[in-house]
């Protein structure tokens, strides 16, 4: 599990990945997986599925800290959070089940297209 030959370097890498992920999470309202998944693969030799799973687990803590901080500013709308969050629980169950069974290439490309469309909509307003 842990590379004991270079514990200091490994911890430093985890700290760097965590700090970047935390900044992204707090600044953009995302989990930080966009930072963690690729860096876990490149810097710590994770496989794609391990990076995904470990990143999701870290996101529990990161998002909880970020939302608590936002709550201090009075920015959190609990009702609307439930409106998107509760249906998403069903979605994530389907997604993790599918992940073990379908090739991810088409899904990643499809999601990329959705995101570009959303970005255009946000910029145009």
């Amino acid at each position, binding site marked *: 599990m842990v590379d004991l030959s270079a514990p200091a370097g490994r911890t430093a890498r985890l700290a760097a990945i965590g700090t970047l992920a935390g900044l992204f999470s707090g600044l953009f309202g995302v989990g930080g997986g966009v930072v963690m998944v690729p860096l876990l693969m490149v810097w710590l030799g994770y496989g794609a599925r391990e990076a995904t799973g470990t990143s999701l687990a870290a996101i529990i803590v990161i998002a909880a800290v970020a939302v608590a901080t936002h709550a201090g500013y009075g920015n959190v709308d609990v009702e609307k959070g439930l409106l998107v969050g509760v249906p*998403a629980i069903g979605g994530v169950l389907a997604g993790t*089940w599918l992940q073990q069974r379908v090739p991810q290439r088409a899904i990643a490309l499809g999601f990329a297209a959705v995101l570009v469309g959303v970005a255009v909509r946000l910029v145009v307003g």
Partner: protein
Amino acid sequence: MIEAALIGVLAGVFAGLLGIGGGALFVPALTLFAGLGQVDAEATSLLAIVPVAIVGTWRQRGYGNVRDRDAVALGVLASAGAVAGVVLANAVPERALELLFAALIVYVAWQLARGALAASDAPTGDTPGP
């Protein structure tokens, strides 16, 4: 409002599949379909992410995909960055934050497309652990 709930389902599916994408869809769903400003949408997205990440992690652990010690270390080490990010989000103009967010999701899209195309001739995710 129903659109926001439907996008919630979709965001969950992508989060489970790709490990990213929950917030990338929650935030625009909340601004475009639930009438929130960018900062409130981000804060509310983070609230929605917590239960999704809990359920996703529970499933991923069942598949043996979670390295517990690293995950805890990442979460704890990320806390200072998360607080700094929230302070920054509340300090910058909201329209600037919205444009930065749009840039972020385009970057995510580019990274996903690049990864998908690079992985086309190699099996993914099955590398044996150390």
